[in-house]
């Protein structure tokens, strides 16, 4: 028996309330009808001696004429504009079959592609620092981000936007506000479909504008870049450089990002690295419909709740140094200043600790005693504001290798219906190969890849693998896509593994095989 359903069924509208509601709604409807009629009747253009019926008819005819005139006007304007635009467009476009961009004078080189991606990431930044290496750039941006964070902390104001102007490569914002996310998503699409400049590195003066109409939408950007690159499947091209402003999408959590373009041009940058932007918290809005994830602010970084668990007994072994106590100062309507307090959170008041064996810049935990004396423990991770070159950059933090006690998988239906049904994975060789593949995997930001993955959240495309570890951590979860990607929720990134292994893995995660 569904206990909650049984109990809540007692809460219902009384007959008295229903009667009162019926009367109120009927009265409201009558008022609405009258106000509609009044609106129709009020018109200074109508003859007051004319009957109401004729008033309405006259107004109808007036609207009809108005619509026709407006339509004709816009058609004329549109035709004239079209005719004016076409000649100008044809002059500049020597190859009418080119869809993505006007052809360059010289064949596109790899530098051009890199340049485009860097421009896309850096167009609003006037800092044209010459950074020679990817890692150096990463260091600079992270250092600047860190220095900004430090300065922000002293100012008690988490204005992460400072990282936009300070960091030479990063201008990203991510929001936890779902509504803002939607607006930002529109902005992303708008930004991405707007003109992009491809700088030809061979000529500093030539710039080939990408027509707004022709530019591939943001969701297709990776494919466009692939089309421009060599025909071999160079998945590295899909991964953005450190300077690429590819936003964080509204992947399963509530973060999203907007894409902005910096003017920086970088040389010698790796195409395999991606930068996971720092999560920026939204401005308070009266109409915000944000659905916030549980989070803690620690040392200026946002740690997001994970699904990792542990038992009450093992929690004692995992508790590291006490970092403080959270303040329940954040909710959906908090202003930005609320986030500036150390250990500000939306999870209530609870003690925060480092996790033994794990870097506290990556993972922290909360612990509280329940009435019966057992520990209630939760884990939070910070995987934003970092650069990832390959899967190992994240995977090494999880410490799964040689640490797994139990591995199990769950089908999409079992996960979706929260049945709690898992199937064991006893193939150690498979797991070993999985970890190796993940270490070498190419990372992609959700924003860049999710649209191309289609709707994989179904029984045919989605499974989850959960690991219980020797140190007591349980339910460390990876999402497995049949299409050959691994998704880790805390970082909101996809890792592309070898397609052949992906197929082998998917086939092994089979209930029939287990049975």
């Amino acid at each position, binding site marked *: 028996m569904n206990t909650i359903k049984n109990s809540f069924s007692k809460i*219902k509208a009384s007959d008295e309330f229903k009667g009162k509601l019926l009367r109120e709604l009927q009265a409201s409807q009558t008022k609405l009808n009258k106000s509609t009629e009044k609106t129709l009747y009020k018109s200074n253009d109508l003859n007051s001696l004319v009957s109401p019926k004729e008033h309405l008819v006259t107004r109808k005819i007036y609207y009809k004429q108005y619509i026709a005139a407006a339509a004709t006007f816009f058609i004329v304007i549109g035709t004239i504009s079209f005719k004016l635009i076409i000649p100008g467009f044809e002059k500049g476009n020597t190859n009418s079959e080119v869809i993505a961009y006007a052809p360059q004078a010289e064949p596109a080189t790899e530098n051009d592609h890199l340049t485009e991606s860097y421009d896309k990431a850096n167009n609003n930044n006037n800092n044209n620092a010459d950074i020679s290496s990817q890692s150096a750039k990463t260091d600079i941006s992270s250092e600047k981000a860190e220095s900004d964070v430090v300065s922000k902390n002293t100012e008690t104001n988490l204005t992460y936007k400072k990282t936009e102007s300070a960091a030479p490569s990063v201008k990203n914002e991510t929001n936890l506000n779902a509504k803002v996310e939607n607006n930002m998503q529109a902005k992303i699409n708008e930004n991405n479909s707007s003109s992009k400049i491809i700088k030809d590195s061979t000529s500093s003066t030539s710039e080939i504008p990408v027509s707004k109409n022709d530019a591939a939408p943001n969701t297709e950007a990776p494919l466009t870049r692939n089309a421009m690159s060599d025909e071999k499947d160079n998945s590295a091209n899909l991964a953005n450089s450190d300077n690429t402003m590819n936003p964080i999408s509204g992947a399963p959590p509530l973060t999203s990002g907007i894409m902005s373009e910096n003017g920086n041009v970088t040389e010698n940058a790796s195409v395999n690295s991606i930068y996971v932007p720092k999560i920026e918290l939204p401005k308070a809005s009266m109409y915000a419909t944000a659905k916030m994830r549980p989070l803690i602010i620690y040392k200026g970084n946002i740690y997001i709740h994970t699904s990792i668990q542990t038992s009450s007994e093992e929690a004692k072994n995992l508790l590291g140094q006490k970092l403080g106590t959270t303040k329940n100062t954040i909710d959906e309507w908090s202003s930005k200043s609320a986030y500036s307090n150390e250990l500000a959170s939306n999870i209530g008041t609870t003690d925060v600790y480092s996790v033994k064996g794990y870097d506290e810049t990556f993972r922290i935990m909360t612990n509280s005693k329940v009435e019966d004396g057992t520990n209630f423990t939760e884990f939070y991770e910070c995987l934003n504001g970092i650069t990832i070159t390959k899967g190992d950059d994240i995977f090494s933090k999880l410490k799964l290798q040689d640490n797994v006690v139990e591995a199990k998988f769950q089908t999409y239906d079992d996960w979706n219906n929260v049945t709690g049904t898992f199937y064991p994975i006893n193939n150690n060789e498979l797991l070993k190969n999985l970890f190796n593949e993940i270490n070498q995997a190419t990372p992609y930001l959700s924003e860049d890849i999710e649209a191309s993955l289609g709707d994989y959240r179904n029984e045919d495309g989605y499974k989850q693998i959960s690991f219980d570890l020797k140190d007591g951590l349980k339910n460390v979860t990876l999402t497995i896509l049949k299409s050959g990607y691994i998704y880790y929720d805390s970082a909101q990134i996809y890792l592309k593994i070898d397609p052949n292994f992906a197929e082998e893995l998917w086939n092994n995660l089979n209930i029939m095989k287990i049975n």
Partner: protein
Amino acid sequence: MQNFILLNRIDIEKEVNLMNEIYGTENYIHYLIEKYSDMLIRIIYSYMKNLSDAEDITQEVFIKLLEKKPSFENDEHEKAWLIRVSINLSKDKLKSSYFKNTEPLEDNFIHITKDDNEIIQAVLNLPLKYRSIVLLYYYEGYSIAEVANILSIKETTIGSQLSRARKKLKSILKEDFEYEYN
């Protein structure tokens, strides 16, 4: 139903009736109340924690429906709209300085057993964002995907929040909390 419907020389009474054909008829109001009032009372009660505010907001929701006259593709669409509006209005009221500075009168109008009250209070003591998810999942019987669609939240978020809510409920209710699925 809009002013821009081009009807030549139509009778005013017919036009007004046309606009009210779907919305506002007595039959439709009856239908709304019978089908949705209990559901809305429950969901709004989970936010406001008192019946009088729940009734006020329920009335507001229905009035909004009659005012705005949204077009629905099907009953589920209609239901989802009502749920979303109820939640939004509840949140608006919770935010209002009036509500923050007042305490609702004690509400003894719900006649329930002690066990039921314990479970209800356990749900009401959950963080705000979990309550509607719990009700939509356990009471209304929506799947995670459907709840995600209604609340416009990602499925994985719903899943994790539901998991947290269940854990909290378990810690409070212990063996009294059963969760069985259709």
